[in-house]
C-alpha cells in the first residue's frame, strides 16, 4: 500500500463504506473539516475530522479517524474499522465539504476574487486525510458528469490537454457558513489579508445574506474602509441589514462626507435613527453636510480639514501634525484661517518641508487662494482642479468662512461614476 493516496470529493460522495469484514456499512454523504482556521499553514486546519454517513435510513456524523481511503487499480475504496459517533459540538464547529464548499462560491485570496468550486482534491497520508486544494477548472466539471476520463483520452490523441485549475486550500476562504452557530469573525480570519477595495469588490459579487455575514465579521476600522469602497446600492444594503448600533459604530469611523452620501440614499427614518445612534460630534458634521442640496460644493466636500492660525511658525505646524497624525487625504492641502474661521490662505506639505522651521506660516502661504462657495454648483469642479493642479480645493460660505474642502479623489470617483453609467 502506498503511503499517499490522492482522490476527489466527487469520487467518494455516494460511495459505500466497507467494514473490516468486507460488508457494506453505509453511504458517504459529506466530509467534515474544522471551520476555524487556527493559523496559516497549519496542516490541522485541513484535516478531515468527520464523515456524514447514511446507514439504513439514518444519517449520522462519525469520526474520520477510523476511516481509510485507498486506491486499488484506479478504484477508490473507503474502509472503516470502527464507528465512533461525533459530538454535536464538533459537528457544529465544522465545515461540510459538500454542503458548504462544493458548487459554492469561495474567495481565491491570491486572485482576490470569487470562484466557484467544481471539486475538492484530498490526500490520505499516514497521519490522516487532508483537504489539499479546490478544483475550479473545466476538468472538474467534466469529472462531475463522469466524462472527464474518456474526453481526456480522446483529446490526448490530438495532444491537447484540458487545463486543470486548482487553488491550494491555504489560499481560499469559505463563505457559506449557514449551518453553523459559531462566531464568524474567526472563520473569516483569512479575509483580513485582503485590501479593502478588493474585499469590497468581492462583497458586491456575493449574495445579500453572505455579504452581510462577511461584513459583520470585519472589525470596525476595516469595515469602515470596506464600506467606503462599496458601490452605492451595496452600501445601502449593508447599512440597512446591520443592527442600528453596529451600523452607527461603523459610520462613525468614516469621513462625514461619505456618511452623508450614504444616508442620503436610505429612508429618512432609518437615516435619522442612525444619526441619533452615532456620537454627537460625528452626527453633527453629517447633519450639516446633509443640508446642502445635491450637486453643490457643500454636498461633495469633506469637513476633515486642517486649518492653522497665520501667526504660527513652520516648526509649530509640523509638530502639531505629528501629534494629530491626520489621514493622507487631509494633507492634500492645508489652510490658514483667522480666529473667526475666515480663509486667508493655503499651503502644502511641500511648502512646510522646503521652508525654514522658524518662518511664519503667513509668509509661506499662498494668499488669495482658489476656492469654491459651498452653495456653488460643481459641474466644472474637475476643470478647476486640473487647471490649477490642485489636490484639494477649499470650500467657504458666503462670509468667506472655511467649511471644508473638496479632494481630488471624490472628483475622480464622481467622473468615473458618470462614465460608468454609459459603460457597463
Amino acid at each position, binding site marked *: 500500500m502506498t503511503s499517499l493516496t490522492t482522490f476527489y470529493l466527487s469520487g467518494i460522495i455516494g460511495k459505500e463504506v466497507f467494514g473490516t469484514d468486507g460488508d457494506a456499512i453505509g453511504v458517504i454523504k459529506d466530509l467534515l473539516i474544522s471551520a476555524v482556521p487556527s493559523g496559516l499553514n497549519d496542516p490541522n486546519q485541513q484535516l478531515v475530522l468527520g464523515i456524514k454517513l447514511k446507514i439504513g435510513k439514518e444519517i449520522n456524523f462519525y469520526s474520520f479517524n477510523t476511516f481509510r481511503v485507498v486506491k486499488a487499480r484506479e478504484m477508490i475504496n473507503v474502509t472503516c474499522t470502527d464507528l465512533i459517533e461525533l459530538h454535536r459540538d464538533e459537528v457544529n464547529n465544522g465545515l461540510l465539504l459538500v454542503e458548504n464548499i462544493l458548487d459554492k462560491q469561495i474567495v481565491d485570496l491570491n486572485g482576490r476574487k470569487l470562484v466557484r468550486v467544481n471539486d475538492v482534491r484530498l490526500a490520505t497520508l499516514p497521519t490522516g486525510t487532508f483537504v489539499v486544494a479546490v478544483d475550479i477548472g473545466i476538468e472538474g466539471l467534466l469529472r462531475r458528469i463522469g466524462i472527464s476520463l474518456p474526453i481526456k483520452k480522446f483529446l490526448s490523441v490530438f495532444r491537447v490537454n484540458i487545463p486543470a485549475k486548482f487553488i491550494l486550500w491555504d489560499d481560499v476562504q469559505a463563505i457559506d457558513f449557514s449551518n453553523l452557530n459559531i462566531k464568524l469573525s474567526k472563520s473569516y480570519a483569512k479575509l483580513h489579508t485582503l485590501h479593502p477595495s478588493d474585499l469590497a469588490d468581492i462583497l458586491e459579487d456575493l449574495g445579500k445574506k453572505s455579504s452581510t455575514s462577511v461584513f459583520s465579521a470585519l472589525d470596525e476600522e476595516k469595515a469602515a474602509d470596506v464600506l467606503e469602497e462599496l*458601490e452605492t446600492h451595496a452600501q445601502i444594503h449593508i447599512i440597512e441589514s446591520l443592527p442600528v448600533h453596529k451600523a452607527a459604530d461603523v459610520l462613525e469611523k468614516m469621513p462625514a462626507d461619505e456618511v452623508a452620501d450614504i444616508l442620503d440614499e436610505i429612508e429618512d427614518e432609518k437615516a435619522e435613527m442612525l444619526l441619533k445612534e452615532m456620537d454627537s460630534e460625528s452626527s453633527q458634521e453629517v447633519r450639516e453636510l446633509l443640508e446642502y442640496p*445635491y450637486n453643490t460644493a457643500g454636498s461633495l466636500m469633506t469637513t476633515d480639514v486642517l486649518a492653522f492660525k497665520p501667526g504660527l511658525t513652520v516648526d509649530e505646524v509640523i509638530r502639531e501634525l505629528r501629534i494629530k497624525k491626520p489621514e493622507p487625504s487631509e494633507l492634500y492641502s492645508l489652510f490658514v484661517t483667522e480666529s473667526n474661521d475666515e480663509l486667508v490662505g493655503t499651503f502644502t506639505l511641500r511648502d512646510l518641508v522646503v521652508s525654514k522651521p522658524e518662518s511664519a506660516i503667513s509668509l509661506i502661504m499662498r494668499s488669495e487662494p482658489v476656492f469654491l462657495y459651498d452653495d456653488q454648483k460643481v459641474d466644472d469642479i474637475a476643470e478647476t482642479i486640473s487647471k490649477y493642479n490642485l489636490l484639494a480645493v477649499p470650500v467657504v460660505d458666503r462670509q468667506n468662512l472655511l467649511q471644508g474642502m473638496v479632494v481630488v479623489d471624490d472628483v475622480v470617483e464622481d467622473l468615473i461614476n458618470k462614465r460608468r453609467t454609459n459603460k457597463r
Partner: protein
Amino acid sequence: MFKTRFGKSSFYRNMGIFLALLGPGIITGSVDNDAGGITTYSVAGAMYGYRMIWTLIPSLIVLLVIQEMNARMGIVTGKGLSDLIRENAGFKITFFIFIGLLLSNIGNTTTEFAGVAGSMEIFGVSKYISVPVVAFFVWILVVKGTYLIAERIFLIFSASLLTYVVSALMAKPDWGEIGSAIIRPGITMNTQSLTVIIALVGTTIAPWMQFYMQSSVIEKGLKMKDYRFTLIDIFIGCIITVVVAFFIMVACGSTLHPNGIVINEAKDAALSLKPLAGEIASQVFAFGLFVASVFSATILPLATAYYICEAFGFESGIDRDWNEAKEFYILYTGILLISAIIILIPNAPLIDISIWSQVLNGILLPVVLVSMILLINNKKIMGNYTNKPFQNIIGWGAVGILVILSLALLVIPVISK
C-alpha cells in the same frame, strides 16, 4: 442616478424612484416580442383568425406570476437564478439545464437573424449583406462596452413594436368579432391547433427570460421597499408583450385569414399585408420586425454566455478582457457566429430549426419552473418571502399544463405519423 436630499416632496421622490427603477420588467417584456414571437403570432393569426387570441390571457397570468417570483428572488437573495440552481440543485441538473439553454438559444438567435434577413429583404436588402452587417454591429456593440447605451436606444426603438397597433388598425378589424372570439374561441382540438397553442405559450414564456429578469433586478440593486415599483414595472412589461402579440394577431387575423393566405414566416406576413392593408402597413410591420430582431439578437447571446459562465464558474462580463474571461467571449462570439452562418447557408432548414428550438424551450421551461418554485419556497434561501399559497397554485398549475402541452407536442407527431 437619482439623488434627493431630505425634505423633497414625496411625490417627486416616488416618481424619481420609479423612473430610476424602471426597466427589468419592461426590457424583458420587449425582448420577449422577438422574431420568433412575431412569427408565431403572425402564423397563428393567419391560420386561425381571432380564435387564438384567448391564449394570451392565461399566458399573461402565468407570465406575471413567474416574473414576480424572479424579481422577488433577485431582490431577497441578490443572486442570479443560475447561481441558485447550481448551489441548490447540484451540478447534473445545472448541466442539463444549461446545455439545453445553450442549444435552444442558438436556435432562437438563428430565428432572430432570420427576422433580420426577412425584414431587410422587404426593403430590398440581400440577406448576404444584412446578416453579416448586423452580426458584426451587434458584436462590436457588446465587446466595445457600450452595451448600456445600446440597451436604452433599443428600449426607445422597441416602442416601434407599437407600430403593430398601426398595422392592425389599418387592416380595419371587426372588434365585435374579436370580442366574441375571446369569450368563445370555438377551436377544435387537433394536432395542428395544439401545436400552435404550445408555440404561442412557449414563445411568450421563454426559459431564458427567467434568468434575464432575475439578473436585471440584481443589476439594478433593487430592494424590498421598492417592491411595489418593481411590480408596476413587471406589470407594464407583461402588458406590452401581450398587447403587441394581440395586435399582431389582429393584423394578420383580419387581413390574411379571411383571404385564406397561409404563411410560414413573419416576412410572409409583412409581404402579404401589402395588397390587403397597403404598402405602409407592410413596411411598418417589417420595420418592427427588424428592430425586434436586432434587439433580441444582441441580448440573447450575451445573456446566454453570462448565465452559462455564472453557473459553471467561469469569469464573465464585458468589463473583463479576452484573457481574463476567455470562456465568456468564446461562448458569446460562438453563439453569434453559428447563428449568423446558419442563416447564410442556402436552403437551411429554418423552419425545422425554429420548431426544434421551440421544442427544447418547451422541455426546459417546466424544469426551470420547478427549480424556481422549489427555490422560492425554501425558507433557508427566501426567509419570510417564500411563495403565498395562490402563487404556488398558479405556479404548479402552469408547470402541470406546460408539461402536458410539451408531452403532447412530443407525442402527437409520433402518433400521427
